């Protein structure tokens, strides 16, 4: 089963390779990875990774991550209610005949055009992995030239109690 794990870590040299080395060394999967400083606290980064495995593997992954000296906190976000987002930049062929169709599809997915040329649009779309994939699938027949995707980022939902 897929799990989305959020790791708060101290922003020190080599810390990312400690995390990725742990995964490769122990044969754990990383499906996607996204990391940046949190800006909430100095020298702290948040790393979100999506992995796949049985419960026992996921338990090992979270424990092993926690064991790294530079790691502050590990949360298996997918154990709770959460929201997740991915983003993609897609360059799609946009010649006079297809320009309107591309814009319609992008509009349906609440994407935006971020670069325009006589023969192509670059569009930006955010959403769950499924949504991003759905838009790309619809654009494919028109002619997708390049796709750049981010890893997933995720946040637990706040309590709905007053």
């Amino acid at each position, binding site marked *: 089963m897929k799990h989305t794990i959020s790791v708060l870590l101290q922003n020190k*040299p080599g810390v990312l*390779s400690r995390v990725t080395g742990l995964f490769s060394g122990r044969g754990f999967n990383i499906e996607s990875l996204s990391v940046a400083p949190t800006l909430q606290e100095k020298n702290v980064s948040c790393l979100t990774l999506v992995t796949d495995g049985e419960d026992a593997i996921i338990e090992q992954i979270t424990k092993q991550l926690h064991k790294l*000296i530079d*790691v*502050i906190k590990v949360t298996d976000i997918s154990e709770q209610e959460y929201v997740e987002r991915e983003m993609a930049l897609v360059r799609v062929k946009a010649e006079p005949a297809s320009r309107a169709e591309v814009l319609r599809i992008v509009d349906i997915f609440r994407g935006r055009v971020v670069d325009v040329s006589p023969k192509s649009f670059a569009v930006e779309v955010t959403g769950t992995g499924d949504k991003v994939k759905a838009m790309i699938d619809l654009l494919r027949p028109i002619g997708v030239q390049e796709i750049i995707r981010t890893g997933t980022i995720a946040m637990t939902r706040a309590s709905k109690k007053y």
Partner: protein
Amino acid sequence: MKIRATEAFIKCLEEQNVDTIFGYPGGAIIDLYDDLYDCQTIKHILVRHEQAAVHAADAFARVRGEVGVALVTSGPGATNTVTGIASAYCDSIPIVVFTGQVPTGLIGNDAFQEVDIVGITRPCTKHNYLVKDPKDLVATIREAFHIARTGRPGPVLVDLPKDVMAAKVDFNEPKPVDMRTYKPTYEPHLGQIQKACKAILKAKKPVLYVGGGVIASNASDDLTELAKSLGIPVTMTLMGLGGFPGTDALSMGMLGMHGTYYSNMAVANCDVLIAVGARFDDRVTGKISAFAPRAEIIHIDIDPTSISKNVKVGIPIVADCKHALASMNNWFKREESCNAAAEREKHAPWLEQIKAWKSEHPLGYVEETDVIKPQFVVQKLHELTGGDAIITTEVGQNQMWAAQFYHFNHPRHFMTSGGLGVMGYGFPAAIGAQMAAPDKVVIDIAGDGSIQMNIQELATARHNKLPVKIAILNNSFLGMVRQWQELFYDKKYSSTPLETAPDFVKLAEAYGAVGLRATKPSEVEAVIKEALATDNTVIMDFVISREEGVYPMVPAGKATTEMLLV
């Protein structure tokens, strides 16, 4: 006040009570050696290969129960430490390894003797550092010792660029290290302790399965109290030997691949298995599904990742072994429903069963009059040292015979590369052990293969006048691999015969050490006695029966009850 970084380094080691370090100089670390030359408080032992420095520091740490220290230069000096570091990591031994590094301005430029040792050792250290700024030096060294020593102990590497060590730094008085992201759990959860104790009270056939954690946390007394007060039989891993007295009636010796028949039978049939500071290694469990299949498993370990890693655990206790065992002992004393004498009584039939298994298949070997049996040599070593020597081993058959036949009664008396299995560990380890305990008899039980992997250390032993004894069980084979080839590869002895070997007696003499040889059983005792009476480094070359095997043996991947017996 600013002082030289090298001076600060030495002050940091002094404040950690370091009095001995093992190392080898080189260009990138030369500034530090300049200061060490004048240092009165710290003795530097010059090894003849950097790998040996780390193994010696490892054994020094084990004997003293403190942090061992190694010091080497950049590049090849650093890469030569990797095997030693990886071994200490597998065995959870607290050491700090300092490596020289090229000046910060050259890092990344493929400079002479530059290597990314922090990158290389990332997966085999508990933590590691590159000190890029002189102002971080002192705090980093303090943190390194703190991390190595606390929690589940382990090796820490600190990489020291040449310009950093040539700089001036502030030296502040030490205060306790407090790291936000690193707070090991020492105290057990009392609810879990109670659960575990209640499970033990229900048990009719309990077994204590004891690993190196008991030795690391100095919990032998607490363990012995628990075992003896309730009458629970004890089996130990290779790393746990000495954690419980090996000659005690409750000791079943080692378990696992080369464990005793009765240990493996007891584990397979127990109803409660109390794992203490052990990690369910594949050499212990054999086929996982057949390991303690009927048992409720209690697992005490300071490292949460050890728990339920290989075997699902019913009652996990994350804690220091000593704290957890003391807490359990207290619970049993306070609990009114627990009557220790009645517990012992209840376990009597179980102990009888174990005794029956033991008499069915005791640990033994076929004695012969004309060739020396290796087990006989180990038994004689035990007898003639009163079981009180510090024993180090190499890896392979020599290691297993030492583990089986030298019945360790005290913790911190058996040094072996348990997890990584490093041939070449034993001799440098013996040097480290002898430095840590000058008055003890220290013997490296070796094979003719593995002794050659760090034989150059004879110079180190001699130079420091260390009366270390080496007992080579010489079968002119890489014996353990040969045994596997005999059993599982149709006796195709591919690359295992070692017929071309040095004359170990002459070799000893070449270094100014003493060489002795025994080729008949009747000569063994005299050789050992002479070695023990010699105040010099001694090699004892025991020419043993060539194709002797280590038994019992559980073939890899089989259930531990499927043992091949003598």
